[in-house]
């Protein structure tokens, strides 16, 4: 049976590591050089007027 202390210990340790891993992954994804072009393209693409769908 999981008691309160076990749960607290788990969330305090595991929680720290998974949040740090998450943060590193997100920063890496955001600043990955090969993603730069896609992101800039996406930001620009919504400005172009186009009022019909491609499909």
């Amino acid at each position, binding site marked *: 049976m999981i008691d309160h202390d076990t749960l*607290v210990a788990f969330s*305090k340790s595991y929680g720290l590591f998974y*949040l740090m891993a*998450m943060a590193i992954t*997100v*920063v890496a*994804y*955001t*600043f990955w050089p090969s993603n730069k072009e*896609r*992101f*800039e*393209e*996406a*930001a*620009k*693409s*919504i*400005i172009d007027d*186009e*009022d*019909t*769908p*491609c*499909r």
Partner: protein
Amino acid sequence: MISELTRGERRLALAVLTAVATFGLALAIAGRGDILAVHGGLIMASAVILMFFVIAGFYAPEPGEERLAQYYDTPTKAGVVLAMIWGVIGMGVGDWVAWLLVYPDMTFDAAWASFGRLRPVHTSGVIFGFGGNALIATSFHVLQRTSRARLPDQFSPWFVLVGYNLFCLIAASGYLLGITQSKEYAEPEWYADLWLVVVWVVYFSIYLRTLMRRQEPHIYVANWYYMAFILVVAILHIVNNLAVPISFGSAKSYSAFSGVQDAMTQWWYGHNAVAFFLTAGFLGMMYYYLPKRAGRPVFSYRMSILGFWGITFMYMWAGSHHLHYTALPQWVQTLGMTFSIMLIVPSWMAAANALLTLNGAWHKVRDDATLRFMMLAAVFYGLSTFEGSFMSIRAVNSLSHYTDWTVGHVHAGALGWVALITFGSIYAVVPWVWKRPAMYSNKLVEVHFWLSLAGTLVYVFAMWNSGIIQGLMWRTYNEGGTLAYSFIDSLVAMRPYYIARAIGGLLFVIGAVVGLYNVWMTIREASAERADAPDAPVVPALARSLQAGE
């Protein structure tokens, strides 16, 4: 509307409406002798009325294949109008309860007119009726444009929009009847909650099915925010509403949680409703309509991504700051406080990103009230997220909690951020989808802008003053070591601020009414133009010859 559905979709609509009507009938029969019967009847009546519409249009010609070369905007149009109507109702009831606090006797000795029943009509009316319809309407619009793909079919968007509004109707009418499960912002009872789950699953499936057919390699960030809104609201809604009804014939249910676990679950839900309903979804709106209206790409796309993951993961942990100084373990309170303070980073990323996008387009902000609505929304977003982080600090919370400061903070966010970004987006999207060069009256947009700003400022300043005075009066001791003021003393001190707040709210409501009128007139112009269209080749020629004769 029905003529846009294919024959198969019309059959599907009839089948679904028959099922809903049967469900309503079953509730009405099972709940006879209980207040549940009223809602069973309401559900059945709504379904039957809609069946008449479907049957009336059943044999209309089917839409041709050429429809697939166009975006499907009719649900967006209906959603915008519904949002504006719910906005006027929800804000109007809000101002009513504000006056009720000034004149507490204004209940006509009727149960439905008491503060406890009217207040959730206001909160659900503005959050779910106004905000929710605006989110659904704009999300369909943004999703199609950013994916360059039409919605997957014609029936499911209507199912989501109509089903969602049925939920709102059950919710609001239930509060007046006294049906509530007493969970703030999650008051509707078990049958309404189950219905919303069905609607929400279909909503998410529309998103996935459209994105699967998208023509753009990258999913634009606005869609991430909208999807986080849909997905997380589903999780929150299901977990917080886990309950067992007394019987299938009773409106009353009991929560699966009790004690401090119940409180924690409720505020995990409550604060994430702020995060994902009132923030993530509206950030999606902002990241599409603001760059689009300003004609400039977002200042930093990378910042919008970092902000997205920051907001989605940190907000999850912030809820416990609603339970400072309670039976909740101290470390959980501290955890909530810590994450709330860290939240300032992604929140300000979004606010700064919006304002920096406008940097270089300030002349447009000056001339265009629509863009100014969005700009001011970003400013209030920055202000209220800073205030929220500050108030989550335990020592600050000891002064602010249970006072009007909280009410002021909520309204800085709800009026200043949520409502202003919504009005800005609606003024941008209405001319686009109704194919008009501009709104019916730019002057009225301008009037609406200044009414909103004035109303918000009056409201927020009144509540700041009121809240801090209230907090200080509750913690002032006299020389004998007892409280210097009774509770009623603090109420008397609040009264001038309650009057000011109700006036500020009134300005905001008047603004919303002006907005509804402006939207309505724009639609009328659009339909008048369509009606005139066949005469177009004749009329200009005639007009020219008349002028020449003069």
